[in-house]
């Protein structure tokens, strides 16, 4: 499975990407929504892990744009805003919300669930 991670916290993105890579996930990571769109135009991803709050294109908007490129792409949101009740404004199709700090095992479980 091919996964793209988008988070403006560079170190966090790096660490999380490394950990997922260690668990056998084929992962790319970028720090802005704009870069993510560029990547997604070039490559096809099964899953996108998006930070909700980012400068420029935010997670919610990015989700919409990625879905335009690839309607089959699964989306997992990361948020620093606590519980999932924050995301009512988000798309109903969004697969899942995870609150930071995340449990890597939980993320792995969700990844496997969304990709079947």
């Amino acid at each position, binding site marked *: 499975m091919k996964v793209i991670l988008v988070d403006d916290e560079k170190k966090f993105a790096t660490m999380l990407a490394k*950990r997922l890579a*260690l668990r056998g996930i084929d992962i790319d990571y970028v720090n802005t929504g704009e870069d993510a769109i560029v990547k997604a135009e070039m490559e096809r991803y099964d899953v996108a892990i998006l930070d909700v709050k980012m400068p420029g294109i935010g997670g919610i908007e990015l989700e919409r744009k990625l879905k335009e490129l690839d309607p089959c792409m699964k989306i997992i949101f990361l948020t620093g805003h606590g*519980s999932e009740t924050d995301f009512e404004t988000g798309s109903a199709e969004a697969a899942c919300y995870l609150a*930071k700090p995340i449990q890597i095992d939980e993320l792995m479980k969700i990844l496997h669930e969304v990709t079947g």
Partner: protein
Amino acid sequence: MINRTRRALGALWPQFHRQDNKLLDPYFTFTDYHKIWALGICVLVATALVPLLVVTIIHYQLLQKSVDSELTLRTERLASNARRAVTFFLEERLNALRFTVNEIAYDQMTDPDQLAEILRNLKLGFGGLTDLSVIAHTGTQVAYAGPFNLGGRDYSNQRWFIECQKHHFYVSEIFRGYRDVPHIIIAVKFFRRDGSFFVLRATLDTERLIQTLASYETGAHAEIFLINRSGIVQTPSKHQGDIFKKMSLPVPAYSQRTQVTMAEDDQMRSLIVGYAYISTQIADTPFILMVIKQKAGMMQVWQQLRSNLNWFVGSAILVILVVIVLTCSYMVNKLYHADKSKAETMAIMEQSNQLASIGQLAAGVAHEINNPLALINETAGYVKDLFVLKEQGQKDDELIGYIDDILDAVERCGTITRQLLGFARKFEVKIQKVKLNEVISDVLVFHNKEAIYRNIKVTVDVETDRGKLQQILVNLVNNAFQAVDNGCILDIEASPAGADKGTGLGLAITYGLVKKLHGEIFVKSKVHEGTTFTITLPTRIQKEIIENEGHTGG
């Protein structure tokens, strides 16, 4: 009894700041309720009493004036009547003498027997005559009829004789004369055919005159008497001096008509003085008729009336004052209580505003902490991954244990920040399906082991605001755990004194939250036994109500 007195006093003199709470002071609309109270009373008393007093005074003055004029009128009438009687008394007797000298020849009159006969006839006709004498133009008495033998006396130098010669008639003052009996002399001059004249003189008994005057006297406060023109009292007077002594009042000014004036006696008592200068058609007389009334005595009826009026006005004023004071106290008390409850509401609102601000601050802090926390989490996780998954370096169980400690600590911090973020959202009510036991188990994450130890189980299916319920339970459980630390005594006071135990606002917030969910919270506590919090919530809250509240409140 004492309580009742105190309550009655409180109604008249209310203490508007009995349960003073200085914290509420800034929220009161008015600062000085005693001032409002006193001002209200003053304005009402002035508006109510000034017209009453003005009308009363005007009424008094009108009444006084009418009583005065009534008294004056009555005195004048009395003086007028008495004057007519006195005038008639003297005139009648002067006319009798005139008739006698005109009708009876001089020779007959000088005969003592004839003169005695005439005297007897006159006495029969009019009475009040003591003697008769005929005096020749030389002043020598030529004939006398009466009880005293005064024959042959010479009157030529006497004043009455000279006056009578001049004016043809004479009326004397009352005097004692030779016999030391008060009497009046009247005399008539008559010309004989030979050109000479003679005078017929009669002595009048004053008793008749005094009786006539006395018959006009009415009541103890009025007296009628005669004075002469120099103010010598001529007939007995009760108050104005002895007979033949100078009257204590000044002699009134001459007037042809009956007059009424006001005067004061030597004891400064008000007197109404009616007087008339007595003058017959035939001759002038030296008499002035005096009618004197003591005003105080005559005013007794008026004073009684005034006393009744005073009582009535006094009672009315008292009733008005009491009613005004009671009304003012009641109104200002109501105002005070309304203001106080408004102040309390505002204080609570401000407190909840502060809480909302604290919530937002907490959310901000939590959010800021979340990012570094996530970084710690991933970094520590990666280090662990390096050891465990990549098998870089020597796999050291102790080291892995330490890293797990870091990850556990991060997880706990994460839970706390999630709670804090949730706290910020507590101020918006959102109705959704919740499972209470899930909410409770979420809450108990904080005190997992202790909660299991205390064996709290709730199985209720309700629709309510999940976040708020969660917060309520967080607060209660927090409180309970603090109380246990405190030696099993649950400190239910939301007092800042327990600052080391938290903000002390926990229960207050809990109460507010329960109210927001349209519920009730009850506490039953016994020292050394424990405390039971009972929260009752409606199982369904109509969303519309909450939304409406949100709009109007917003």
